């Protein structure tokens, strides 16, 4: 098991290195640079700035310096926000994105497993039809529309209640998190519900469930011990990609609900070609996602004995 984790970590490091390299060169291949906006007004200022940021050196030297600093854990200083290190930006804003993301994934996973199991048990009956209709809707409606609808319903609810039950935008207390997290998790929940349903339908007709019935076990026991556990295995395997999807979706939700997360900074940085912020956030997100996928796989190993022992 330890060896497995170490191998996976090593692979992960190679992947992160690859992402960093590809991003670095792709970014520099793009015409323009962060100084071409408005700061470098004269040739001299430009030259000074280039020197300060090391942009005057050949690209491979810049790459070497960046990689060295990165290994030390230093992502450099932002081009567009003076005197702010990328590490600071990540330290300040990532916890916001992470909190939102974790809430969303928990909401999506719990909802997905429960709804999916329910629809499979009531196959082609009313609960199945209603939930699957909502699921199809959830998959078909873009996240920003959900975000807009979420905000609209908050406004309506607050209006109706006469007081601010839940804040419409911003970040702070638990109240700020609930609706954005739900909006963020909705699409993934719909996807997981579908997956859980088909996996559950497969399990419902599995030979070992027939055996469990022949043993005369009560329906709840069959459901919990024999169906739910086996059916939720595929859901666990897609949690890694699901986390990635939620991270991407986070941009939109952060934008609409004015949440000071890392996603907004990232989009902004890309638009301004802020080299260091792009590199820093990309590498950080890349490493985070790689780590998440490894953790999910290890968890999967723990609940599936076939993987655990082989």
């Amino acid at each position, binding site marked *: 098991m330890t060896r497995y984790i170490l191998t996976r970590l090593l692979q992960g490091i190679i992947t992160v290195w690859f992402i960093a390299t590809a991003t670095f060169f792709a970014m520099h291949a793009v015409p323009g640079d962060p100084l071409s906006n408005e700061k470098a007004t004269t040739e001299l200022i430009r030259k000074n700035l280039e020197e300060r940021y090391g942009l005057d050196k050949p690209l491979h030297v810049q790459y070497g310096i960046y990689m060295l600093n990165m290994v030390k854990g230093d992502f450099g200083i932002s081009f567009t926000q003076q005197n702010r290190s990328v590490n600071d930006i990540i330290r300040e804003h990532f916890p916001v994105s992470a909190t939102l993301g974790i809430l969303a994934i928990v909401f999506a996973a719990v909802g997905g497993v429960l709804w999916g199991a329910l629809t499979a048990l009531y196959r082609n009956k009313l609960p199945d039809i209603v939930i699957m209709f909502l699921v199809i809707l959830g998959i078909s409606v873009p996240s920003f529309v959900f975000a807009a609808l979420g905000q609209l319903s908050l406004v309506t609810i607050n209006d109706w209640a006469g007081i601010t039950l839940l804040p419409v935008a911003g970040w702070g207390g638990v109240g700020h998190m609930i609706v954005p997290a739900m909006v963020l998790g909705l699409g993934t929940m719909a996807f997981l519900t579908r997956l859980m349903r088909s996996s559950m339908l497969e399990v419902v*007709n*599995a*030979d*070992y469930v*027939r*055996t*469990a*019935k*022949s*043993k*005369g*076990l*009560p329906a709840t*026991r069959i459901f919990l*011990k*024999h169906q739910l*556990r*086996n059916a939720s*295995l595929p859901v666990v395997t897609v949690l890694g990609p699901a986390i990635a999807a939620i991270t991407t979706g986070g941009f939109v939700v952060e934008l609409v609900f004015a949440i000071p997360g890392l996603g907004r900074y990232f989009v902004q940085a890309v638009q301004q070609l802020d080299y260091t912020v792009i590199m820093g956030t990309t590498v950080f997100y890349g490493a985070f996602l790689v780590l998440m996928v490894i953790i999910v796989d290890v968890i999967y190993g723990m*609940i*599936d*004995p*076939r993987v655990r*022992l082989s």
Partner: protein
Amino acid sequence: MSQPILTVDNLHVEFDTYGGIVHAVRGVSFAVAPGETLAIVGESGCGKSVSVQSIMGLIPMPPGRITQGSAMLKGHDILRSKQIDGEDIRGAQIGMIFQDPMTSLNPTMTIGDQIAETLIVHRKFTHKQAAARAVELLAASRIPEPAKRARQYPFEFSGGMLQRAMIATAIACEPAVLIADEPTTALDVTIQAQILDLLSDLQRDKQMAMILITHDLGVVARMADHVAVMYAGQNVERGTVDDIFYRSAHPYTLGLRDAMPTLTADKSHALQPIDGSPPDLFSPPIGCGYFARCPNAMRVCQTQMPEEFHVTGDHGARCWLHHPQSTHVVPRLFRARDAGDAA
């Protein structure tokens, strides 16, 4: 036959499918007594498994449907009740073993837990008692190192071992009836013999009634006291094992025998396959299901379904050839009249 413990009478089962209604079982009757083995034989799709699964309540409804018939266990119709005198039928009164042991056990639960849960549910054992009993049952099913094996998962077992574990599960509550649905089909030949030995030993010790479903006539000869031959959703002939093998009263049974290799037969004697295929049960024939393949078909066979004709003792056959008006003489086909003549 001594007093039967389970009597199934005129069972009919249908399934709704997207192509129409399949009449999978169209009148099946059999009985089995304690300490005796009834073999149900027939080719694939003849309704063997569906018959016993509907008795066990394992048919998904819908699309499945029991339209007629009864199954009496200890004087209660178990098609209509799930319990007898406060005890569950499934698992406690009747145990069942399935064809494919590799997929019939829960992959994420230890073998011991899977045996123990029956005892916890039906016998109200504590977890500790149940776990200890599970080890004993594994030992009784001749699994070496039962204590270690009980803590393992199905994927760590071989097919034969899994089937032993399956048997241990089925007999955990000492059921009155044990149903084995092709228990050896998925196993290789040497293991088959071991599993069959285990089954007959356990049956003798516990005086269980056993229903053995198979399409292997060798297994029938070895295990069965009584036999029911099924074809196209009906039992076409039933009787003792000797009746079926030596006094076959239905052309289909004769056909099956001719299709079976024997050690004694002359080397030049070719196996005789039965030409054609069974009728489509989406629209079952009005007359005898075997009409299209029967070498002795008569006009009536096409238009009217034969009732079961009594041959001798418990021996019966669904075939118009046994009608008193039928004058056809079929060599090798056993008829009550012939028995009378011989006597």
